[in-house]
């Protein structure tokens, strides 16, 4: 039963999901859409079903909430078969997020989020509080609660879609290409935010996608499927990349496996270089002294404010004055955070004009500098080849 407690953090509001020889055969079709699928998703993990179009991944996901009926076999949530309940009742305890979002155009955002709680008979006050709480959790201004979906952008709408699915604190979440209809920039943001959210709430999530990169980024476990819902490999992202089970998986994962592994790492996992820091108003002579030091790794000074927040890179011309100027010559370029996924960081670096990117902590303070060189050095090092390097495992929390 849904916990209903407003504290979303500590409650173990998640169940495992188990497929037991689950089959879906459409009448008149030559082969089953899903053929005796057997899979277990541990509670609190994101399991990604990935595969080419038509492989049955969406059908398999939909059998959990019976929006597609099971022909034979069973699906269990926790220890209960999904066939024991009335479909409508069952679905109210399962979060459901679809690609086209499907918010009710005629209801406000708050009403949309509160849809399932309303079905479950919560009182109005409780629904309102829960909606407000969720709006905050997904990073939207609580004022948006009174607006209609048409007034929100696609990215905002899908966030509401996720909030709506979480409203009644479901045991399981089903997500069918949830970010597929969003533009690439916002998609990345939404993915990151969902991962952050998941770190807090730890729901059991069945996530369907056709994009192997998304699968690697999002999944704790990945099931690579082919036609008939046949699972070719069910493993963690690292295993998938380092030891693909067969040619199909290898082809599907792609030839750029090494590059893909970068998706598993975070910026903070490797040793960063340091840049000599310069403060506004500091005498340039001091800065020059730092630059001249023998062990300096980066030949350019980084201008920071009193809080050690990066403002820009200083050039020779800047250093011509007596004191460090307020505005640097070169712009900052991309600024990375320690939690950023390494692959995205590499992409930012390659696109930016500067070859160095400052890395900051949660408060925006400088903690080091990343460059393409650093990354390639690391990949070549013996540490990167070992399985147990923390950068290769997915960090939790």
């Amino acid at each position: 039963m849904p916990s209903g407690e407003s504290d979303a953090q500590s409650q173990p509001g998640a169940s495992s999901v188990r497929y037991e020889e689950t089959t879906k055969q459409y009448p008149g079709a030559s082969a089953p859409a899903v053929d005796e699928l057997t899979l277990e998703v541990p509670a609190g993990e994101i399991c990604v079903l990935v595969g080419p179009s038509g492989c049955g991944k969406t059908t398999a996901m939909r059998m959990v909430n019976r929006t597609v009926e099971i022909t034979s076999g069973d699906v269990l949530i926790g220890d209960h078969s999904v066939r024991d309940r009335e479909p409508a009742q069952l679905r109210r305890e399962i979060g459901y997020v679809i690609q086209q979002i499907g918010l009710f155009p005629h209801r406000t955002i708050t009403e949309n989020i509160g849809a399932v709680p309303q079905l479950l008979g919560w009182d109005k006050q409780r629904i309102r509080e829960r909606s407000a709480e969720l709006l905050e959790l997904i990073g939207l201004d609580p004022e948006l609660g009174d607006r209609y979906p048409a007034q929100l952008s696609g990215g905002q709408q899908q966030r509401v879609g996720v909030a709506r699915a979480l409203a009644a604190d479901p045991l399981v979440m089903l997500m069918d290409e949830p970010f597929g209809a969003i533009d690439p920039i916002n998609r990345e943001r939404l993915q990151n935010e969902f991962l952050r959210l998941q770190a807090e709430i730890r729901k059991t999530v069945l996530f369907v996608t056709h994009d192997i990169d998304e699968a690697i980024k999002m999944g704790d476990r990945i099931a690579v499927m082919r036609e008939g819902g046949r699972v070719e490999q069910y493993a963690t992202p690292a295993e998938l990349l380092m030891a693909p089970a067969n040619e199909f998986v290898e082809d599907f994962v792609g030839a750029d496996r090494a590059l893909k592994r970068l998706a598993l790492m975070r910026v903070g996992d490797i040793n960063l270089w340091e840049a000599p820091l310069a403060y506004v108003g500091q005498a340039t002579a001091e800065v020059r002294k730092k630059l001249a030091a023998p062990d300096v790794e980066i030949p350019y000074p980084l201008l920071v404010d009193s809080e050690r927040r990066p403002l820009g890179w200083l050039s020779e011309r800047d250093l011509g004055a007596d004191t460090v100027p307020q505005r640097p010559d070169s712009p900052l370029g991309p600024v990375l955070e320690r939690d950023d996924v390494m692959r995205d960081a590499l992409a930012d670096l390659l696109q930016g004009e500067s070859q160095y990117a400052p890395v900051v902590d949660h408060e925006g303070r400088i903690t080091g500098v990343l460059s393409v060189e650093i990354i390639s050095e690391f990949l070549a090092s013996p540490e990167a080849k070992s399985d147990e390097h923390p950068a290769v495992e997915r960090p939790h929390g």
Partner: protein
Amino acid sequence: MASPLLLTAAAEVGGDFFRERSSGTLPCQAQSSHLFCWDWAKENIDRYGTPTVQHLEIVLLSVVIGFVVAFGLALFAHRRRQLQPPLLAATGILYTIPSIAFFFLLLPITGFGRDTAIIVLAAYTLQIIYRNTILGLANVPASVKDAARGMGLTNRQILWQVELPLAIPEIIAGLRVAVVSTIAIATLVVFINAGGLGTQIYGSGNLTFPTSIVIAMAIVMGMALLFDLVLLTLQRLTTPWRRVRQA
């Protein structure tokens, strides 16, 4: 060729009839008089009271009955696709048959009077209301229905809480057409002795005179416009989400 003879004969008789009854506003009531006499209008405006009320009663009853039947049919046919074409055809036939003929087709069954009028007028509204309701329901985005179903709404809840509210604009659009058309057509019920504003255009077997006709026409069209605006306002009030600016 009986008609033109009868017509001129009627005109003369009618002329005499009015001549006797009038109070000196003779030119106004002759059939070939000019378009509009304000004097006559001011003096005789109350004679339009009862016909207008009769007219409205018939219209409202017809539209309400027509709506209930057509709406019910649409809900019934909503999830039963095979039924939709035959229902569309059946309501279409009722729409195509000219009302005046329809009145008399029912003569052996229900005779003269209001009942026949209401049956025919209600039948006339069926197609537009049925078709618009079906259309409105069909235009609900599939993703919204998918999400609703996946969240755990039952079919009935989806229909009443999601599909119908979203179909309101189309349904009311159909209702507006039905109401406006029925108000105009109800002038014909005079032919089966059901009263209405038609009596001021073709009273007791003769055409009346321009001023009377024009006033009746103005009242009919005025009512139609009024109801149209009222329904439009109703539609705007019940669909606040359509008034907002899109992101």
